[in-house]
């Protein structure tokens, strides 16, 4: 029996921008992630790393012009962003936004309820849910008081990123994409975030780490490392590739 992939991008081409002045960013990207695997995507600025995250999650403004993406054998092309989330795709944002007036607790509950509804599952009971969120918050060094505050409202950079990881652990998706989650983090916060991601990892789910720096990969050890340049994966290897990149830069590849 062959193993079924969790995420499969075949010959993915994508543009960013409106019709008139759109620009091709992804130019034939192939990537397959199997259950239990962690893949890291590295590459120079402007290579298309964040575009990949946005295309996969269905952010408006990005158009797939060729190729296809399967999430757990389901084609993503026709799914709205919230349907992709309901199908098990999670994106930890590079720049988490603030939503004033909507408390974190309310936001998390709305999210959990939407996912439960999509799967015809029962909504979590309020008391158990609050306990679960509190425990998660403490494990990520987030003051439980933050749950009453507006989503990311007045959070420090580190708190915002830890909040993303809290959501990751709470929603427990099939496929997690982390878009430069390490950017702007001090070493303590980086360790907390990495510890959270490692806690998330299991045999059934997948992780796609988008990062600039090898440093994150000291804490989250990837199974595969890919180098993205000009919209294509030009080199793949194991974790040692990241160390090589750290030493030599990208120029020897491009």
């Amino acid at each position: 029996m062959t193993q079924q992939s969790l995420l499969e991008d075949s010959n993915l081409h994508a543009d960013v921008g409106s019709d008139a002045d759109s620009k091709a960013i992804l130019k034939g990207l192939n990537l397959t992630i199997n259950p239990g695997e962690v893949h890291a995507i590295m590459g120079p600025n402007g290579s298309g790393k964040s575009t990949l995250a946005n295309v996969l999650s269905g952010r408006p403004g990005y158009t797939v012009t060729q190729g296809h993406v399967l999430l757990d054998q389901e084609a993503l092309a026709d799914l709205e962003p919230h349907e992709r989330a309901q199908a098990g795709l999670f994106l930890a944002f590079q720049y988490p936004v603030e939503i004033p007036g909507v408390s974190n607790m309310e936001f998390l509950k709305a999210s959990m309820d939407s996912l439960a509804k999509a799967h015809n599952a029962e909504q979590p009971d309020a008391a158990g849910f609050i306990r679960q969120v509190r425990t998660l918050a403490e494990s990520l060094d987030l003051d439980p008081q933050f749950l009453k505050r507006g989503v990311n409202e007045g959070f420090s950079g580190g708190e915002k990123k830890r909040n993303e990881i809290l959501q990751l652990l709470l929603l427990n998706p099939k496929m997690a994409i982390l878009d430069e989650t390490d950017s702007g983090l001090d070493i303590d916060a980086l360790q907390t975030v990495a510890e959270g991601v490692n806690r998330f990892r299991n045999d059934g789910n997948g992780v796609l780490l988008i990062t600039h720096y090898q440093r994150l990969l000291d804490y989250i050890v990837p199974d595969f490392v890919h180098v993205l340049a000009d919209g294509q994966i030009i080199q793949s290897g194991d974790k040692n590739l990241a160390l090589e990149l750290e030493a030599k830069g990208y120029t020897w590849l491009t």
Partner: protein
Amino acid sequence: MSQSSVDDLVEAGREYSAGFVTDVETDTLPPGLNEDVIRFISQRKDEPEWLTEWRLNAFQQWQAMTEPKWPHLHYPEVDFQSISYYSAPKSQADGPRSLDEVDPELLRTYEKLGIPLHEQAALAGVVPDPDQPSSNVAVDVVFDSVSIATTFKQKLADAGVIFCPISEAVKTHPELVQKYLGSVVPQRDNFYAALNSAVFSDGSFVYIPKGVRCPMELSTYFRINERNTGQFERTLIIADAGSHVSYLEGCTAPMRDENQLHAAVVELVALEDAEIKYSTVQNWYPGDENGKGGIYNFVTKRGLCAGARAKISWTQVETGSAITWKYPSVVLRGDDSIGEFYSVALTNNRQQADTGTKMIHMGKNTRSTIVAKGISAGRSDSSYRGLVRITPTASQARNFTQCDSLLIGDLCGAHTFPYIESKNNSAIIEHEASTSKVSDDQLFACQQRGIDAEKAVSMIVNGFCKEVFRELPMEFAVEAGKLLEVSLEGAVG
């Protein structure tokens, strides 16, 4: 929970679900306005002569006045001669109004709207819950021009509270009506108030005796049914010294292609140490998405803190009407009196709203708080207009104003017109304002967590309105949120 008017209005979801027409035989005056029409109305209501004269005097004043042109509103001129000024369900024309005599067709209308006309029905829905002390609500219902039923009369009477149609109060408590009618909003206060004074049809009258805490929420429910009629209700609430009352009004109308006029006057009088909390959930038909039809809502609401330490609080959630023109105000005459205004005004499609408040500080140490939230979506236009006036006698007066606008999409407008007049150096006046937009990033962040766009917008808008919803009586806060959700249908996408 017994009173779930708004809930029932919104549960059907997609459309304006209160937009149906009730088929009852009516006694409707032909369109037009002159002294004979006013005499007819007065006669039909069997009014004393002083009131007939009062109306005629108002009519004379009105004829010399012109429509205000200063609001930031655009609509074709209203032809006041094409409106019928009196409409009543025929079966209500005579006889005492006990519930058993109400036309079953009308009762069904209100059942559809979720208004508990039968006291039993009202009680049946009440689960004894100590957390919901106010879950029985006394309701007065105004259908076109007449009040058709008031519930819980006996229980209120036991507490000494008078809650009845104003047409009845004119007969049963003429001394109170004559003393206070027009005492807060004079006949010639403005064009629409003068018109209302001349032709007002019905409305609610409330008197809370000295030291009494009204045992339940009072509520009036307004419904325009008949075509080409205007609704001109008049509400008068008097809270005697040391008393307390919380009052809620709700409004709906059928969907019609023509515009319909609603010009109400509400007067509140709070004597020494009295408190009046007045909440409105206004869901008049807003017109269709192209701006056809809808209610023109020109309303004058004003409260007078007549005695020391009196408090008047207005809370409004305005989602309906094609045109909204209203400025619930407080005159702070008593020393240490308090005025509050909490408002959410949501406009979508082609709706226009010019709304806000006036806080007139006259007494010493008077305080006022204004929190106004405007939400504009579609091609709508929403304006906040507020006046804070500190007169020379109002030493140590304080005002805090917070005025926030939220835009959804890029075809709508939000405007703020604050007026501050301070004639006393010891006053402290604060004004904060903000304008924000529901950003694509916020929407996407919600969607990425599985929340669809419409739910996301309504969650963001509800968050934006939280400070105001907190002020609503408990059972209406949730409903108000749901109402916003429905009013925002189609605002994204």
